């Protein structure tokens, strides 16, 4: 019995590899896009324009306040009503990028706000332009604060990519779901799926931890 299951599991090996590839592709594309958009929006959010900041704030609340699953359904089923034809992969990328941009925007904005006003004043006093102040003084310091949560956020987003299996994309989780229909051993199948995610996510978790420790060491905080 176990041997038979094992054999059909090995038979599912190409499928599993495709699933892993899909998960990695989905995560990688939307992380890159999300980071670019999130950075831009984060800088805009703290630029001092009230209206822009409000609009971004509202969008963030809408994204943070609703389940990702519902967001995917909205994008996948409702955008076509506006005449936008989407396949599941594009819908998944849009949903994940949107989610990533939202969280990264907040992380970057928090990083920028954490830079003491004295730094901006010093830059002002030495005659740097707004762009120079941002690029030379504020962003480098903000990045140091933002980096650990940013890496942590990447882990969350890779995990969230599993939810796109709900619209039929054959990612790692969907592969597990398909295999378990043929090999009725949920513990084994989803333990293997879990290992797949673990292999991708755990190094990032360790990296985030290391960055965080280095940060607090640099700031001279007491380690307990």
């Amino acid at each position: 019995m176990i041997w038979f299951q094992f054999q059909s599991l090995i038979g599912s090996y190409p499928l599993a590899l495709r699933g892993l590839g899909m998960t990695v592709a989905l995560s990688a594309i939307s992380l890159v896009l999300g980071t670019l958009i999130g950075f831009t929006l984060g800088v805009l959010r703290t630029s001092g324009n009230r209206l822009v900041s409000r609009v971004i704030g509202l969008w963030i609340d809408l994204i943070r306040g609703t389940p990702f699953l519902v967001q995917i359904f909205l994008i996948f089923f409702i955008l076509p009503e506006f005449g936008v034809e989407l396949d599941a992969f594009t819908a998944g990328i849009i949903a994940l990028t949107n989610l990533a941009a939202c969280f990264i925007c907040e992380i970057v904005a928090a990083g920028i706000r954490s830079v003491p006003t004295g730094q901006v004043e010093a830059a002002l006093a030495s005659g740097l332009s707004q762009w120079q102040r941002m690029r030379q003084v504020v962003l480098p310091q903000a990045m140091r604060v933002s980096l650990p949560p940013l890496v942590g956020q990447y882990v969350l987003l890779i995990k969230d990519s599993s939810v796109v299996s709900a619209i039929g994309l054959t990612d790692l989780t969907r592969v597990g779901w398909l295999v378990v229909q043929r090999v009725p051993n949920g513990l084994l199948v989803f333990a293997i799926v879990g290992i797949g995610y673990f292999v991708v996510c755990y190094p990032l978790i360790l990296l985030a931890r290391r960055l965080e420790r280095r940060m607090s060491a640099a700031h001279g905080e007491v380690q307990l």
Partner: protein
Amino acid sequence: MLENFSFRTIIEYLPLLGEGFVATLWLSIVSFAGALAVGIILCAMNLQHSQVLKLPAKMYIDAIRATPLLAQLYFLYFGLPRLGMVLPELFVGILALSLNSGAYIAEIIRAGILSISRGQVEAGVASGMTYAQRMRLVILPQAIRVTIPPLLGQAIVLVKDSALLSLISVSELTRAGQLLASDRFMPAEGFITTAACYLLLYYGLKSLAVLSARWLGVRPIGSRI
């Protein structure tokens, strides 16, 4: 376009959506209570010096944090019957949510305890308190204060995560929206209404978190929602 947006259908489905809303609410409350219990136990294990308790707790927390909730949910949903435990979907869902959020709550509580300065511990030691007395009288009262806002943040995460339970056909809010969407081919009506209901819960919990942070004089929740 959405010019045919049908409020009539939404009103027609209001009882179903209402039931879904109530179901999401109470299953979130039950799961959060479960998660608190799991979190407290894990955190207590993690703070021990003995590796016998510390190591399993750490491994559990890492395993939960490095894998998606959906995979954990399917692990239990397809796996438990294998162990001879055939449980109702609702129960499996609550179990998965509790076990998942518990790992995050353990880390929140631990961060709260470690945020208490060394001097506080030493003041307790110097006045002759035992470990239990220091925990009870000095550390925990201060740690709980800084823990409440992030715990409310975790509650927001849990409410949103509960939407995944619709994928193992638990009748809750997202499931109700799906039914409306597929019965009447009206995805807009179904999912926008669903989203609005979640936003209601989100804004409620968020204001609670902000208010509690103000009352307790600690900084508000971070970005992990």
